[in-house]
């Protein structure tokens, strides 16, 4: 479904990714973990086609993604990917409901249909009461659930989330995480979550561990298993060329 082969990416003199390879199957829920600065966000952005690696390949459904031009990648993101950011990143001028509706409209759906979809997603995530409120009036947890609704409403095949609960306390974080994973499984979407938090990782089918821009564990479904696999074993089989 989603595959990265020996990705390299550097920013100036810092090397963010140094030959990272991963393979993610359809409908899988994977957690990307690792110490700060290990390249988790960079890997996620490469997989989502937001940034281009300097070397290596990114494949989505068997198609090269990194060689597409910006327009094609944008279209691909819109049609297949949903993204949840750390701080929600809702448009402050729009209400919660409009924030969910907007990507649907950009995707070419009609207003009424979009509104209906938005409402039902807000309801599912238990923030239907906040539909008419603007982001500034929402709590962190509500904000994040609206952001999850926005990412899921377009029914993407892959959902990327970069520390979606990083700004929340553990209780609110767990709720949001539970809902994100539950919704992803229900709609059989693939979910890639970047996280520091071990408890968040426990929700996942597999944990991909990064260190210094390399995948040290869980690169493929076969080697990873659940978060239990020992790093040494996984690294041996994981970094495939």
């Amino acid at each position, binding site marked *: 479904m989603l595959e990265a082969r020996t990705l390299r990416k550097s920013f100036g003199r810092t090397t963010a990714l140094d030959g990272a390879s991963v393979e993610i199957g359809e409908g899988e829920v994977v957690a990307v973990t690792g110490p700060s600065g290990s390249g988790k*966000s960079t890997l996620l*952005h490469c997989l*989502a086609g*937001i*940034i*281009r690696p300097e070397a290596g390949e990114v494949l989505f459904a068997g198609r090269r993604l990194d060689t597409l031009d*910006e*327009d094609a990648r*944008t*279209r*691909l*993101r*819109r*049609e297949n*990917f*949903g*993204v949840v*950011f*750390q*701080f929600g*990143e809702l*448009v*402050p*001028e*729009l209400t919660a409901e*409009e924030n969910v*509706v*907007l*990507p649907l*409209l*950009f995707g070419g759906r*009609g*207003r009424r249909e979009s509104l209906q979809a938005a409402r039902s997603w807000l309801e599912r995530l238990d923030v239907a009461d906040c539909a008419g409120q603007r982001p*500034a009036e929402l709590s962190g947890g509500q904000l994040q659930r609206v952001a999850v609704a926005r*990412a899921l409403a377009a029914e993407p095949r892959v959902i990327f989330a*970069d*520390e979606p609960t*990083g700004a929340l306390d553990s209780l609110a974080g767990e709720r949001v995480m539970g809902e994100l994973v539950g919704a992803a499984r229900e709609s059989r979407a693939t979910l890639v979550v*970047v996280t520091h938090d071990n408890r968040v990782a426990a929700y996942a089918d597999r944990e991909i561990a990064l260190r210094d821009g390399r995948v040290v564990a869980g690169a493929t479904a076969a080697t990873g298993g659940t978060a239990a696999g020992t790093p040494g074993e996984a690294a041996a089989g994981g970094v495939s060329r």
Partner: protein
Amino acid sequence: MITVVRMLARGRSRRERARGRLMAAGAAFATVLLCAAAHLTALRLDARRGALGVLTEKEPRLMVALTLALLAVPAAAFIYQVSRLATATRERRLAALRLAGATPREVRLTGAAESGWSALAGGSLGAAAYLLAALVARWSLGDVVPVRPLLWTPVVLAAVVLGGALSGLRAGRHVVASPLGVVRRARPRGPRARDLALVALGVALLAAALTGKGRFFLGGKYGAVVAIAAGAVLLLFGLVLATALLIRMAARRAGRGTSAPETLLAARMVEADPRAWARALSVVGLTVFFGSAVGAQQALTVFQSDLTAFQVASYALLYLALLTAMVTSAGALVAHQAEALLDHRRSFTVLAASGVPVPALGRVLTRQALVAALPVCVVSAVAGAGVVVLLLAELYARRPGALAVSVAGAAAMAGIGVLAAVLVARAARPILRRWVRPEELRTG
């Protein structure tokens, strides 16, 4: 205090220095215009004819002075607009000062001192240029050009500096509200219906003066002139304030029924901050207002074959004034566009990252301009032409074609105003493309 200002001035970014220079330019412009206006009213009309043909007849002289003074309004709006540029970096700088222990009052005064200083620099330059021009005129034209009005120059300069300082005082108010270093913009207060009272007052004054057949209950003939001038100015300022109200209403309407995502986003963004748009568009609205009024007045004369040289010259002067106002408007629009882009950069970047193509974001910019500019320009055009047509209803009744001409003129002016706003928004597209890079999105 001075040490503090100097210390802060050193921390200014390049954009902020550009703002300072723009502000000085606006101040210079306003000073020249106001001085010229003061001087024109005092020209010795009967001293000599010919050389200053147009300017020596009393009525047009007053009109020219009024036009120039009214041009200073756009210049002032421009200064205010510019003083809001680069607010983010400036606020961060001022917030740092707050953290270092400065009181809110000191921070506000610092802001005032900064922009007051720019206004002083620019205003002095403008005053010097004006004095030079006036002396040259005096030297070449003799006593047609009186010397006494030159005494007004320092007064005008003081007014300009005061205006600059006041706008700086206001520009710093967001920081004042947040004692922590976190600069968080206070939610802008919406426009108030009270602003409409100024419009009503202006209309009442105008009506009272005009229906009195050249006499006013206070001061007779002179009182009527003053009342007309005051009424016009009040009306214009009121219109500027009411513009925010109008823009918000129009934006709300536009956002309600649309199924185009660009329009929805544009309308909501405009609705969230109608004051910024009103500030930028007030100048455009004024220009459209005057342009339509002038057009309506001229519609009566196009059928006239015996145009005097004086008429032609005064129209040329008016159009020159309109052109200047239009250029000033464009400047204010550009300043506003830059500010809006800075404000929305994060939202646009996130949208681009989640799959919204950049051209669609470009359409959001043009639609914002359209949503805000269309109502302002239409209302201004109708008001400008309407006032003249109503005042000269008798003449219009005798020339049926004139009404059509003035309507066409007003439509053209409104079109030009909207076009200016849309073109500025379109011109911002390359900047948008350069700024909105999803790959620069740092999420954590």
